[in-house]
């Protein structure tokens, strides 16, 4: 994760209601954004949904 993403993570994670649970998810989202932008992030979430569904 770049310094820029790390800073943003720190900024946002402080405000999360359940940082313990959702912090990792935020990290993932930022990682996807950094790698491929909004569409990559959307695809990443959809992939997560598929994994949960066992597809």
């Amino acid at each position, binding site marked *: 994760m770049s310094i820029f993403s790390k800073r943003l993570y720190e900024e946002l994670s402080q405000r999360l209601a359940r940082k313990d649970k959702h912090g990792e998810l935020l990290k993932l989202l930022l990682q996807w*954004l950094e790698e491929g932008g909004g569409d990559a992030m959307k695809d990443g979430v959809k992939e997560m949904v598929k994994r949960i*569904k066992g597809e």
Partner: protein
Amino acid sequence: MAGKLRIQSISIEGFRGVNKKTSMNFAKKSAILFGPNGVGKTSILQALEWCFFGGLISAIVGPPEFKKEDAIVNSFHPQKRATVEVVLEDEKNRRIKITRERKKGRSTTSGKTKLEVEIGGTQYSGEKAQTELNKWLRTTPTEFYASIHLHQEAVRDLLVGDPLVRSEMIDKLLGLHFVRELIEYIPLKYVAKEAKSIEEEIEDIQTRKMQEVAISKKRLAELEIEMEKTGIGATSLSVSSLMKLAEDTMVKISDIEQKIETKVKVLEKPQPDTKSLEKTLGELKNSIGKLEGVWTTAYKEVVTKASSVESLKQDYEEALKEIASFKIKDPQDFVDKKSNIDAQISALQKELDSKISTRSLLQDEVTLVQRLSSNVKGLELDIKKIEQDFGDEAKIEASINKLQSQIEEKRARIKQEEALNSILISGLDYLKSALTNNCPLCKSDIEYAKVITTLQKEIEQREGAKLLRQIQKELEGLTKEKPNFENALFNFRRLKGELERSRSLIEQEKEKLKEKGFKPTEDLVSYVDSELKEINNRISNLDEQMRQLKAEATEIDLRANDLRGKIEKLSSVEKEIKKMFDTTETGEKLVEIVNERIGELLGQSKTLDEMTEELKGTKGMLETYEKILSFLKEKDRVDKLEEGMPILQQRVKDLQEKYSKMKELEAGLTDIYQVTSTAREEMIKQALSDLQLTIKSYYSKILCHPYYLNLQLIPEKERGKAIYRIRAWDKDFKQGTYVQTRFSNAQMNAVALSLFLSMTTRLPSNLGLILLDDPSQSMDRTHKEALSKLLSQILEEKQVLVATQDTEFEQTMQRVFPKDKALIYNFKEWSLEGPKITQ
């Protein structure tokens, strides 16, 4: 990767306006590309963009015509190939050599480019080359477009382009593009929909499938009770029992087959499972159906035949009876009888014709005789009238003669009287005039006075007595009376003549009638009337006789035809029966044979009737079979459902786990979305407060609007999307306006340059480069001076390439730019080979 990259050199061939290979060695210095419009300056700047990214942003966001042809490769290049080679170096002289090549394609955006990158002696090609290059550049094409390469059209785009595109760009420059993307791209609805879908599947299993087991079991128990009520006990509800029933039904079918002398299909015993039993059910149904078909055909055949024979028999007996009802058995007898009647009719017709002819004659006679008789009567009356008025012929003649003599007498008397009057008047006139006392006739003496007096008296007396007039009147009366008698005499004689002629004609008619055999009486009118009446009566009589005879003849014809028809019918029926039973018998004997056959057919029909019951019984067995099979199938299904219950329960458990995870993901994403949305506003505020200062600094350096001295980016929302608007304010930030509404083109250009250069400072790019294409558009000398000064400050930190056709601006830059830091390239003219450049 420390230190910004600058352009060491560029080599271009076959790219847009450049055909022949053209090289420029910048040696990391800034440069002014100066020359008139259309000589290839912009092509040099675009070559850099294309070499870095493999495309031109203006081809993507520009007019659609870019997509209709290849606008990259120069149309006149001999190999139809574009090649651009750029060498970059950073402050530590680390070198990157980028070579991009492309063959002419169908459009600007289609087709591939070949890329080779050499970094520190390592060669990369294809996708790997682009990845490595991106790492070094740390700039996306959009960022390059917004903050490195200020295109001619970019000024317009920054100010009057799509606010959303501009705003995305600004967010990137503010370092907020991840925040924007987090808000816009988190697929919250998608995750919620998937969670809902799992929830629905759980509900479906719990409420439908699992409950279905309980409901099905209950229904099965109810069905068992219902079966019991219809006589199918619990002991019958088994596979073995059903197999026994199948065998019994097969035996029954076999019995029926024998009885109706047919064979439908050899049936196999079922296996002890519902599938095989169901197959057997189909075969049994099929066999019974076929048996029913055979039975129905046979039954129909027997019944139809019996009915047909019975009908024939009835027809035959009826025909016999009908012929017997005719007294005459041979139609020839009718023909003879008819001939006799026809002869009578013919004789009567002859008489009738004669009588009609006579009647016609008599009718003419009646008319003539009546007319003559009427004439005679009329004439007699007329004669009688004349006789009454004037007497008979002799008397009339005497009267005429008498009248004639009286007339003559009166005429003589008048003559006398007139002569006397004349004498008296003449004597008077003479004496009055002569006054003589001598008589002129006799010459005797007279006293003329006395005589005159006497003559006057006489004349007066005679006039007074009106004698002459009286006589004349009498003559007139006689003269008038005489023609009456003369006419009467004339008419009398004429009528007499006519009377005689009429009487003579009547006599002639009498003679004519006598000649025709009539015996006329004196009163011919009465006679002919009477004869005519008699003939009319006879004619009526003849008509009536003929009508009766004709009716009789018609009746005979009808009866004869009827008899012939009956005989034909009898013959036809008889022929049919004889053929049917192959016999030569007729009449009563034939009827006996037919009766025997009918008896046989009725016997067969009775046998078939008995089969109906057997078929019915077999079908009953089949119904029971079907019910039991249906029960067993349902039982199988319920058993399987029960067996599947643990699987369903496990599936629900799995789904609940997935649902829980999905909800957790949804909660996490929602939390992140909400947090990001809140944070964004604060972050924008912070970032803009930094950027505003830079914008203001540049804006004031390029010479701003005389009244609106401050520029500000305002975050707003438009149709749910976050955008930025550009507003200008007075010195105290009290009066504001959108720059698009009030600024001149030159002022707008100044605003765009301020924003562009401000953004350049924010970009985390590794390219220490600014490309400006015709930045002095619409500016006056003062603005150009200000911009040149600003650029001279920037080129201390970055490599600035400025393309311009503006001589004043070029001269200002030459004057202001430090000589050792900026090169000047003059673009002289353009030909098919490309631009001619001198340094």
